[in-house]
């Protein structure tokens, strides 16, 4: 377990150069989440683009892991269907709870596989999940996702 296994190049890159940051003009749904242990805050908003795919905006402050994860999330999800976003989210959550065992699916998760190492640092898992949980709430709020499909995050 070394620092590099946690802070992959991709993560540091997204942290320093976040993609898609900023809020939407007229979001369908919006959610503000905090990490009560450290005070990190993140607002995630969703809308639907002209091509019918999701549009995601976000803004907040936090550590490298939470910021980079929100950036990767927005990049991964944008333009995809709500169903696809669910697939990504569930795969990401699974990876977070794998305790570093198991091989995350790069086909599905793309850049987000860089977060596999976070699973070995329990106190940082919440940081990595912050954006994904806010996304889910924003989708539920917008009516794009129904509450039933809500997953329990331990």
């Amino acid at each position, binding site marked *: 377990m070394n620092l590099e296994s946690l802070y992959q190049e991709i993560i540091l890159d997204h942290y320093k150069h976040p993609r898609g940051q900023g809020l939407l003009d007229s979001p369908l749904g919006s959610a503000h989440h*905090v990490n*009560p*242990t*450290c005070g990190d805050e993140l607002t995630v908003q969703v809308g639907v683009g002209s091509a019918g795919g999701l549009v995601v905006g976000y803004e907040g402050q936090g550590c490298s892991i939470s910021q980079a994860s929100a950036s990767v999330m927005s990049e991964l999800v944008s333009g995809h269907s709500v169903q696809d976003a669910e697939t990504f989210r569930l795969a990401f959550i699974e990876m977070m709870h794998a305790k570093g065992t198991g091989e995350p699916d790069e086909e599905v998760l793309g850049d987000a596989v860089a977060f596999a190492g976070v699973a070995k*640092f*329990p*106190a*940082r898992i919440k940081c990595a999940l912050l954006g994904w949980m806010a996304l889910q709430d924003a989708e539920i709020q917008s009516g794009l996702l129904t509450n039933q499909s809500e997953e329990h995050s*331990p």
Partner: protein
Amino acid sequence: MSLDVVRIKKDFPLLSRTVRDGKELVYLDSGATSQKPYQVLDAERAFYETSYAAVHRGAHALAEEATIHYEDARSAIAGFIGAAPSNIVFTKNATEALNLCAYAFSNATSLSRQGAGSRSIDPRFILKPSDSIVISEMEHHANLVPWQELCAKTGATLRWFSLDDEGRLDLSNMDTLIDSTTKVVSIVHQSNILGTVNPVRAIMDRAHEVGAVGIVDGCQSVPHMPVDIASVGADLLMWSGHKMLGPTGIGCLYGTSEILDAMPPFLTGGSMIEMVSIETSTFAPAPQKFEAGTPMVAQAVGLAAGVRYLEEIGMDEVAEHEAALTDHTLSVLTAIPGVRIIGPSTTFERGSTISFVVDGLHPHDVGQVLDNLGVAVRVGHHCAWPTCRRFGVPATTRISPYIYNDESDIDRAAAGIIAAQEFFGVAP
């Protein structure tokens, strides 16, 4: 008897000591608190020596380890009654857990009277003077005084099941006692003074029929018999760690997810919040919502080791062992002239805590003679003073064995009772 008591006794360092000038100790006061096996003491110590840190807050390696130990303990303890970890709240003892329940009602009532602002208060917890709370005449003070206080604060009325001469609940008026005014029904699973095991399922079902919150005090059942939370049917159930091989300073509260979500917090402060500004706060989901401040981490780890110890024996075996001991105790006690059992006279739906009085002798004096012979029993009202009044006695002597006791221990207690009668010249 199926338990290997001789082997078990070896795990309990204290049980090898002597008392009162070299007399071998016979410990028959487990209803008050149990002794601890070295497995529990070792687990607690190892935790302090290798993984101790603040839980749920730190990001360093030790803090992560400590948190894992704490949450693993919660899982083990939850599993013991067939619950999920998120349905278990740690308290300092069962008394705190019962107060937590009672304060849910007084806090909700005060908040709603004051106008709760943006907070939504579940109406089930808001009490009016026309509401009632139902308990029984065999409750421990911990399941009585908090409800008296709640009534004094809200104007609600306390009602109770009375007892028959065998020490069983009189359920004949259940449907009028628990009626549409009833907001809480809180009943002991197994009486700590009479030994009676109550039909809690039927009482909880009736509570739910009228929309009341159903609470079971499991202090004397969880340590002594298999308790499956689903079949108890309670919304809330609590017990203490120290009566089931665990350390002092830890109690457990089980609540359904639905009820824990609906209850307002009790103790507030660090670790139970979601967002805090200097003007207002929001709260974390249960169980965190009910665990303000630095929790009893080492005690949870110790109690989990106690739970594993009991699981290795098997709770069916524990219950069977205690049933056999109860049978033996009832027969040797009733064979002594002048001894009267307070509580059920057979093993049918009764546990192993056995109270009795000796004609012409005060329990303090019976206990003193037993103590002088090395036999530790409890004398007094056992924090169930109204039960004593019901049976017209100021106090009783109580024998309460556990997994480390066998028939010879009971026989030594019986011999002590006879010795007491002789010493005071009251043998009939």
